[in-house]
Structure formats: C-alpha cells, structure tokens
C-alpha cells in the first residue's frame, strides 16, 4: 500500500502578489511547475523566494498581516478556491524547512508517522511506511537500529533528512523545499540531491537554493527572483536551467548566476 505512490501533479501560479501589512513584497508572479520536474528558485536574499514558496501550500496565510492576490492551481484546481480546505492542500503539498525541525518529544519512528496522525489519517502498515520513507530520504541505514531513539539525538544533517522522510511519509504530489541543504555538510548535501533526483520520479519538486551549482545539478528549470530597492520582488527570468545559466536573456540574470552580485 505504501508503495502505491500518488502521481505527481502540475502546479501553476497566476499573478501571485503578496503583502505583509501594507508592504507589497511580491508582484504578479506567474510560474508553471510541470509534473515530475524539479524547479529551482534562485535570487538574492530578501527578494521573496521563501514567501512565494509559502503561498504554494497555504502556509503564507498563517503569518499575521499577510495578504495575497492571484491564484495557485494544483492540476487545474485553485488551492485558494472557496471550498478548498487549507489542511487538504498541505497534505498534498509537502514542505521541508530551511532549519531541521523534527518533533523533539517524539522518537524517530513517531516523527515519520506524525504526519498521518496529525492529519488524522489511518496508518496502514506502519513498519513498512517507516522503512520506505526513511529509505527514500536515504537515511534508513543510519537509523534502522535506533528507530525508538529521540529524534533530537540525530545529527543536524540526519535531522534534515528525517524531516524530508517525514514529508515523504505523507506521500505528497508536490514537495516544496526551502534551502534544505543550507545547514548541511557536503556529504549530506550530496545525498539530499540524489534523493531529490529519485523523488522527481514520483512528485513535483520546487526547491529554493542559494547554491548555483546545486541549482544546476538538481533542477530542470530555474526561476530567478529579484527585488530592486524598495520595490516588490518578481521573476526576472524563467526557463530551463540550461538556458538560465548558460544563455540568460536578462543582463541581471547573467550577473547573478555568474556571482557578480547578490
């Protein structure tokens, strides 16, 4: 049952603009994330990448004072539609945060199963689900003998892969990752990159990264975000990773991917 993976979905945003209070931080972002593709979001600090990512699974609305215009479609259905429950959206669109955040009061195994418990779904064969999830996040071999240990006893890199496994146990159609490797060593980073590649067989992935090499290694397409001084951020260039990095159309993209600013 756990092997029966959900099919990946296409995610599509239309003129997404975002406000915090009266301040607009994103202006009319329209992007398409095709099924089974990995999309990298790059851009200098503070240009709104994390904010945009949070609009994709309705985590944005949890911030006091947040505002939004535009629409986000998951397989053609607006996730901000009238009869759509944010909770269902988040079940289908998983999220991995920049800082590892395993649940400290739970064991490794309980962390993996926490998503199902928290979203109130039935747990089928839990042993098998725990194993497949941990395997898909390539951390199984490191923790298989200590599944009942506290999650905080893991190293930072292991905790991050545990958090990925926790999202995978939910069997999402889309996985959002906000700088998942920024706190990790090269070894863990490489393993997560391999994981991303394998995962793209079964889901759509959007990853924010500050690492240009990483964007080129893992992604099929890339969106370059930029916010000029005191103006809302937006997408300057969007296309295949190959094109954005080697044949950028916009001069600012060229400067950024070659490390001239940001």
């Amino acid at each position, binding site marked *: 049952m756990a092997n029966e993976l959900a099919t990946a979905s296409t995610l599509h945003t239309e003129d997404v603009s975002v406000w915090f209070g009266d301040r607009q931080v994103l202006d009319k972002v329209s992007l398409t994330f095709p099924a089974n593709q990995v999309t990298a979001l790059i851009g200098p600090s503070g240009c709104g990448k994390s904010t945009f990512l949070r609009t994709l699974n309705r985590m944005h609305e949890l911030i006091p004072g947040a505002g939004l215009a535009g629409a986000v479609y998951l397989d053609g259905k607006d996730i901000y539609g009238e009869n759509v429950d944010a909770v269902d959206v988040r079940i289908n669109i998983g999220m991995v945060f920049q800082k590892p*955040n395993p*649940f400290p009061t739970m064991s490794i195994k309980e962390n993996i199963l926490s998503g199902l418990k*928290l979203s109130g779904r039935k747990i089928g064969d839990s042993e098998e689900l725990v194993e497949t999830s941990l395997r898909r996040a390539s951390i199984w071999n490191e923790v298989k003998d200590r599944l009942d*240990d506290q999650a905080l006893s893991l190293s930072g890199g292991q905790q991050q892969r545990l958090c990925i496994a926790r*999202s995978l146990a939910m069997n999402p159609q889309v996985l959002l990752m906000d700088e998942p490797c920024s706190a990790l060593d090269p070894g863990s980073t490489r393993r997560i990159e391999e994981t991303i590649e394998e995962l793209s067989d079964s889901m759509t992935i959007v990853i924010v990264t500050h690492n240009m090499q990483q964007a080129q290694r893992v992604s099929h397409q890339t969106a370059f975000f930029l916010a000029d001084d005191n103006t809302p951020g937006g997408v300057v260039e969007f296309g295949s990773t190959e094109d954005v990095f080697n044949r950028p159309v916009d001069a600012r993209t060229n400067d950024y991917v070659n490390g001239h600013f940001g």
Partner: protein
Amino acid sequence: MSTQQPRPAKQPWSRSNAAQRREIIAASVLPLIVTAAIYWILKIDYTVALIGVFLPLQVLSAAAVGLRAFGRRGIWDALLLVLTIFLSANVLVLLASVLASVIGKGFGALSSQFFLQNNIYVSTTTSLEYGGVGHAILGSLIVVAITTLLAVPLGISIAVFLTQSQSRLRGPVRTFTQAISGLPSVVSGLFILSIMPYLHLQHVGFAGALALFPLMLPTIARVAEEALRLVPADLRMAALALGAPNYRAFFKVILPAAKTGIMTALLLGLARVVGETAPLVLTLGSNNSTNLNPFDGGMASLPRYIYSFVNTKYQTSQERAWGAALVLLMVVGLLFGAARVLGRKKSLKTKASKATKKGNR
C-alpha cells in the same frame, strides 16, 4: 561491547593546580576564623559580625586570590562568586531553619494515630496519645483537589488563548489575570463568603474550594503561558505543514513540548493554595470529625487546624499545631513528588519500550 579500557576522564579546561587550591582554601577559611575570633572577643552582634566583618573580609580575600590567579578579570569573577554563594547560603539557612523548627517542634506529636484519627473527643488539654489530623488531611486534600479540578482547565485555557490566538482580547485577559494574582487571599475568602447565600452554599468544602480558586488560577495561567511561549514556533509550523488542524498541532506537538513547564505551573498553583488559611477560615467552617462530602457540613483542613490549636495556651495543643504543620509540609512534599513522577511518566515509558525491544532482538 568494545574491549577497550575506559579512559579516565580528562578535563584540560580545569586550570587550577595544587598551590592555587591551597590558596582558595585559605581564602575561604581565614575570614571565617578571623570573624569568629572578633565575634568571641568583642562580643559584637551576630548580624554585625556577619555583614560588617565576614563579608568584607571574604570579598577581599577572594579578590586577592582571583587577582593572583587570573589578573584583573579574576577580581570580578571572585566577587561574583562570593556574593552568589553568600546570598544562596542565606536562602538555604532560612529554609533549613524553617524546616528544622517545624520538624523539631512537630516531630514529637507524630504517631500513626496522629495521621489516622480525627479530632472528636479531643479537648485543648487531651494528651497527645489521643486524636489526630486524619480528618484535616482528607479535608485539605479534597478542597485542594476540587480547586485544582476547577483551576487547571481554565488556567491552561487562558494560557492557550494568550499564546495561540491572535485575538484582540489577549491584552485585557492578561491584565485581568494579573490583577487577580494581586488579590489578597482574605479578600477572596470574604468575596465567596458574601456570595455564598446566593449560591445556596453553607460553610462547606466546595465553598472553601471556590475561595481558593482565584488564588490558584492566575499562577497556573501565567506559568503555563510562559511554558507554552517557550515552544519554538518552528514546531507549530512543521505540524501545520503536515496538514494538521490547529487543535491537533496543539495537542500532539505543542502541549507535549511544554509538558514539564505545565507541570511546574500545576505545582506552583498547588503550593500557592495548599497552606492558605484565611479564605478557609471564612468559608470552610470546621469539623472535628471526618467529613468527605464537600457539599454538606463543615470540613476540617490542616491550616485551619494549625490556626485553632496554636492559639491556645496549652502545651499539648501547641504540640498538636506543630505536628499538623509538619504534616502539612509532608503533604506538600508528597504532592510535589507525585507531580514530578507524573511529569516524567512519558520518558519512562519510552525507555521501557526501548528496553523490551532491545531484549527481543
């Protein structure tokens, strides 16, 4: 598992050597000896000797040692150390002398019958072999238990409201809670006394519990609020990102993470009310025999028992009062111990399950 010998723990960061250690000992003992000498010879007041002679001497000698060992920085370290130890020693002495006087004066009254019997047929001069505080222990426990049952859910709800909601009413609610915490206990008792007729309550256990309620509630609410506030916002976000409705994120993630803090809230709340006398004198009535019904008839309680017996001029009565005071301390200790054990239950359980899993392999 490995055949390696355990290596002795080395602590390369500990820098003190034998000579320094001798200096430190000298610096701690000398001021004491000098102070003692001056105290005996000049016959000065004990407090004056402690604050006027011992403390300055100790500060000077510690500063000297600090200066020799670490230079200027050592002086401040030494001063801080001396002040910290001096002030905490004062607190410890205070606590120890309270305990010592209660144990010293109350221990003589203790016997199994003192715990088990009640106060019927006991007069102010009855010898200590008869009667006891059993009825008052039960009364206190029942009253405090009812107060806890009322105050814990509401107190934690207030804490949850203050930390988890975005409501505009948070400010007023917090101010109101703080205001109640300044309520003198006798006023709380008087208030309940004045509304008892409207509630159709006589002087009964439940009325006593109501009088303690405003005292326990703010303590629990505020300590629980602090505990919940300490839970990182990340965890809530992680739970919500997994598709948890707010209430499940709270019960399965936030509350467990704040569990020890909430236990502390409960403990401090108990500590706040268990020795309260004034509200109980006003509302609880009293009873010489055992009454387990909080809605019918007066009830005995330990503070009330102490209060009435210590006010007589008879030796045995006063001994009874001290005995009851000691019992009250023991009850508090037991309640604290029980709450600690309950708070630790979860980790014990996981340990146990781990042990059995290991055994099965």
